[in-house]
């Protein structure tokens, strides 16, 4: 069997191999029960996707011929390491006219690389910065 077929046969992960799927604090799907939620053993932090699982979903997407979707999952895998506020801060910075030069975006890319080990996201921000510069988006809007 090709690697692609194996990837596709393992999908859905939760149905074919639930024991292989864990939350960020190591709890497997099987342990995320009503009882454990009720007694406070499970919190919202346990019910999140991990970079490993996103990487596996990226492989599934790639095996199904969906390269762009796979790349999005790989960016997302890096983004799991970003706190919500940081995600929102960079999102805001990417909106038109929020940055008044390429410097703020460069600085964000730098931080993504060094602080969050997110090279894909950093490259993505640098690509945006180059296009914003070329298309004159560093302008006051409000």
């Amino acid at each position, binding site marked *: 069997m090709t690697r692609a077929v194996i990837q*596709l046969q393992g*999908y*859905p*992960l*939760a*149905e074919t191999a*639930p024991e292989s*799927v864990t*939350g960020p604090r190591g709890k497997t*799907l099987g342990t*995320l029960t*009503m009882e454990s*939620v*009720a007694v406070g053993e*499970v*919190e*919202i932090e346990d*019910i*999140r*996707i991990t970079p490993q*699982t*996103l990487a596996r*979903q990226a492989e*599934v*997407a790639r095996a*199904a*011929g*969906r*390269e*762009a*979707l*796979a*790349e*999005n*999952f790989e*960016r*997302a*895998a*890096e*983004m*799991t390491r*970003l706190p*919500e506020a940081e*995600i*929102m801060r960079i*999102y*805001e910075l*990417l*909106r*038109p006219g929020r940055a008044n030069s390429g410097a703020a975006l460069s600085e964000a890319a730098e931080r993504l690389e060094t602080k969050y080990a997110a090279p894909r*996201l950093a490259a*993505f*921000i640098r*690509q*945006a910065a180059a*296009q*914003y510069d*070329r*298309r004159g*988006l560093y302008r006051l809007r409000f």
Partner: protein
Amino acid sequence: MDSNRWNRFDDWDARALRLDRFAAEDPENGFSAFAGKADPKPGLSIANGVVTSMDGVAAADFDMIDAFIAAHHIDPAIAEEAMAIPSTDLARMLVDINVPRTDLTRLARGLTPAKMAEVVAGLNAMEIAFSYSKMRARRTPGNQAHVTNAKDDPLQLAADAAVAVALGFDEIETTMRVARNSWSNALACCVGAAVGKPGTLFQCSSEEAEELEIGMAGFTSYAETVSVYGTESAFIDGDDTPWSKAWLAAAYASRGIKMRCTSGAASELLMGFHEAKSLLYLEARCLCLQRGMGAQGTQNGGIDGAPLASSVPGGVREIMAENLIAVWLDLECASGNDARHSESDMRVGAKILPYLIGGSDLICSGFGSILKYDNSFNPSSFNGEELEEYLVLQRDFEADGGLTAVEDSAALEIRRRAIDALAHVLKDLGLAEPTEDMKRSVAVASGSRDTRSFSPGEVAVISGKIKGKGLTIVDVIRSLHRGGFRAEAENLLFLVKLRVSGDYLQTSAVVRDGKVLSAVNDPNDYTGPGTGYRLTEARRKELAAIRDVLTREEVLRAEAAMEEGETRAIRYNDMGPAEAGTDPGEVVVGFSPGFGTRIFRTLAGHPLSAVLRAIGEGVARGGGRMRVVRLRHTADTSFLGLSAARLSGSGIGIGLQSKGTAVIHRMDRLPHNNLELFSNAPITTLGHYEAMGFNAATYARGGFPEPVVVPTNGEALGARFHARVALTYAIETAMTENGVSPEEVRIEFMDKQT
């Protein structure tokens, strides 16, 4: 009154259609579905794996959209092969059952927006519909509901969400009248959607940042309002760029939340930045961009621009064509059919048909499961009012539109459960104190105008508390569990656990029977008749099971209920074989085999005793005498009439079926060439029967009466009555016997007032 205008135009002016405002084609000003003044010719050049020009624009002149498409959508490994195929060949491949879908989705990765637009523009509406059905990503069709109300009342949201789940919607979308009510709406809908079964996905359409926050708190399971536009200026006006939107796409995935983008024809035109390009070309750009961003899917097909797109010639074909591009790009397609594009029910019905019979990942995005005035997105193509019409269309075409009828009593039970569950959570988490009166009024209310519940201002307080206390879905699950709403707690937990495995992040994912169904494990494998999605017998029966269906037993039961009254009103005394009459003043009424024995009222509801009495009175007024015979060799009106005429001393007879259809006949005429026919039994009054008797007596005297005309108002009587007619008539035809002679019947009316 004199007029210098054909009055028919006044009739046409009064129709709902004329409320629609149509626009002239004007390619220079963006009013063109397929051929904008500035639409480019397809083209692509690549050097060293980098796009150097695309659709007539050199890389140095790319706007942000071109640049993003060139970098993230165009696959240089496929582009040369794909772009070299003539557009007409690609168009033929799209409708060819021998070309697999996956061959075409592979080629799409190497095609430019202008090329894709040129290809689909070469298909007529039927070819687009067929190709869409072949190319859509997931095999099993689905549907999405809007659940909103004019008060943002959480109790009603919960009840309506639960009903939407019961109807079979795969996804539920809400939004608010007052922006800050978003947290309350999210809580209410997610609790309501947990009633009955797990896995209905839910989204709360709000401001980009807030929507993501609500998602991160676990209340929602998908998002679809990540809008993109086909011109750079419109994009900037929308306060985003391709990169900021792609950032959001990754952000949702990073939190295990399903996400699709949104784009639809004419949004650029509405925003004033069309660049003299056609609706279709701009949409092709939007869609290539969405694939490049790595979105698994799109909400596409006019969407909010559908009414404007539909105002130009070919606008609806264009909406279908852009949907085809979406699925050709291997994107999940929530195919619009939401913002109502016309005031004409007929235009709406026509537009839904290709999607209903061809299927779509989500046929509507969404279907207004609530009444029109409660739809905070504006009315949909189909709404609470028209929901049963949609169910009947499914049944008519044996087409799975994703919905299943809900029974009366089950609906109320579901609503009460959802209201109780939410009321408990609101109290338990210290958010609000719903009263019994509020709950009762919401349970039975069709819409928010009939409720005594929370006002939008009170909801704002609830919403602020949810946000302020930092509540998450885990708090809600625990609260439901504490309150004994264990099934609902489990269902919500199931839903939120979907984000841990991320299986539903794959293309076209929905949840059916507790399992994720997507384009990965349920791919559309259509390759001609017998392949692709087919109804199972069980599903076919579900589609057939609409409310209030007539059966033979029911018709007989209704007649039996009438029988008692008739036994008190009339007595039919059988007097033996009927002889030919000699009285030149007589009119013979010959009635059908089941008359007064199995059937007791006409389709108009008149007791048969009253009909006979009316005819008799008319005959007497005309100076004649009525004689009555039962005919058992036929149940056909013409032959009843002719047989009666041949027994009549005057040569004039009346044939009368139990269902009320009647004819005046004369002995020397051919069976179907009668004197007067009363074919519209449902609108034939006792007055008409009396006049029939009078006319028959007048013919008997050799006179020429004015024929009785039963006026109609254009009612679709066939639709209203033919099921009952067919059942009733079959009862009578089964009673006929060859060669049985007519029987003389002496009628006794038992009381004056029948």
